[in-house]
């Protein structure tokens, strides 16, 4: 109850020790479309629902899963425009890292820098936290990696994770289905099944998006026909 008096200002702690604005940001994420990621032994897969506000929207113009470097991709849950800003900044940071060290940025470094940006917006005046959680999937010299970054700026490495509307069901499903020796193909099937769990309506290549990265270290977003093929395999 006392918390609500502290909910207007980002830079003020509430008596219980929370920054209420960040809690609200997490609520924004929690009401966003479901997205998930699974780390396999030889790659990472990320997937998200792509529910468009109307059938009139040209779905080919919308791409939720974005590339940051050739070997790192990112998907979000929450406010799309906020994720665009973060992706733009991350791309620039990756380029700056390369210009400075002549080495492609390791996944952990990129995650750290993106998280630092998100944290900045929780400790500055006149700004609000980002209303997105990001799932960053990459493959570098340390193998396949999957990180989740929250609006507070905290990040964790996950073997499999989900965020958005259906998070609890999806996570339970993933806990049951995940195995340590899963390969990329199995991971893609598991990702599709997890999305199917909470999907309202008919799932197809047009209303979900899947991004994969394998040992070739090239992140790519699957085309809708490829997704339809996987859906046919899963059925």
């Amino acid at each position, binding site marked *: 109850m006392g918390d609500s008096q502290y909910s207007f200002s980002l830079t003020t702690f509430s008596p219980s020790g929370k920054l209420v604005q960040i809690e609200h940001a997490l609520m924004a994420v929690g009401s966003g479309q479901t997205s998930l990621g699974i780390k396999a032994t030889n790659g990472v897969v990320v997937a998200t629902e792509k529910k468009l506000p109307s059938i009139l929207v040209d779905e080919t113009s919308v791409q939720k899963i974005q590339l*940051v470097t050739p070997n790192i991709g990112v998907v979000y849950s929450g406010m799309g425009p906020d994720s665009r800003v973060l992706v*733009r900044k991350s*791309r620039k940071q990756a*380029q700056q890292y390369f*210009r400075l060290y002549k080495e492609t940025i390791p996944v952990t470094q990129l995650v750290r820098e993106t998280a630092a940006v998100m944290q900045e917006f929780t400790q500055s005046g006149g*700004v609000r936290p980002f209303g997105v959680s990001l799932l960053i999937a990459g493959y570098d010299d340390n193998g396949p990696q999957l990180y989740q970054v929250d609006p507070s700026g905290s990040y964790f490495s996950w073997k499999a994770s989900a965020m958005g509307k259906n998070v609890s069901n999806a996570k339970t499903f993933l806990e049951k289905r995940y195995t340590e020796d899963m390969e990329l193909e199995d991971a893609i099937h598991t990702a599709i099944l997890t999305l199917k769990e909470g999907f309202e309506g008919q799932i197809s290549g047009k209303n979900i998006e899947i991004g994969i990265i394998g040992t070739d270290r090239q992140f790519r977003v699957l085309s809708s026909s490829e997704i339809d093929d996987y859906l046919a395999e899963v059925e």
Partner: protein
Amino acid sequence: MVKMTDLPTKGGFSFDLCTRNQMLLDKGVQMPPFRKTGTTIVGLVFQDGVVLGADTRATEGPIVADKNCEKIHFMAPNIYCCGAGTAADTEAVTDMVSSQLQLHRYATGRESRVVTALTLLKSHLFSYQGHVSAALVLGGVDVTGPHLHTVYPHGSTDTLPFATMGSGSLAAMSVFESKYREGLTREEGIELVAEAICAGIFNDLGSGSNVDVCVITKGQTEYLRNYQLPNPRTYISSKGYSFVKGQTAVVVTKLVHVEAIFQLRVDEWQYRINWGLVQCLC
């Protein structure tokens, strides 16, 4: 506050140091020689795309600083740039524009265009008023076709079917002017470029060593590093030298006994040499 777009920094280039340099020159102080790339760089357009060529000598005044440097720089998978002038400047400016092009590709989702690289380069060079000493031959193939441009240190550009830059440019241009024609095949284009670079290598002191060639066509780029090696290094005998006993006259022989004592302590090693024969040749 975080800005959504990155505004250019206020104030621009500070010319203070340039004024200082001029003052020093007037007083008679010599500028230290910086590594220039001497250089012959060329490019030509053939029927399927562009061919770029460069020599591989980097000079520091009269000294060859690098016998096999790379003067053809990557800008985008379909765009390469040869650089003449100050080596650091060409490296830095091409790296910077390459980085900007990559960000642009992510933002647009499209292949980079040669004119984009050209405009980024010339705007940068112009804003530095010629102090960034980079003379470039930029070539590539994009959706609008093959393009070849030259960029001068002050920021002016030319669009040409064949171009040469650097101290060996006149030697190379003579080859192009006599032998270039439209509609060359790939093999003819590569041969002509190699000939032009060789003309620069043999007739210009600032250029030398090997020929690098880069062929860019629609959908494919081939970087032929050290395509020709017209100046092979002849090394001294690989067997090495044998120093036979008696080749050097022995003047004095002195035998010295030396003692070695090994003491092992927990915290430190101590030793002196024990047995040994030391023959002094003086």
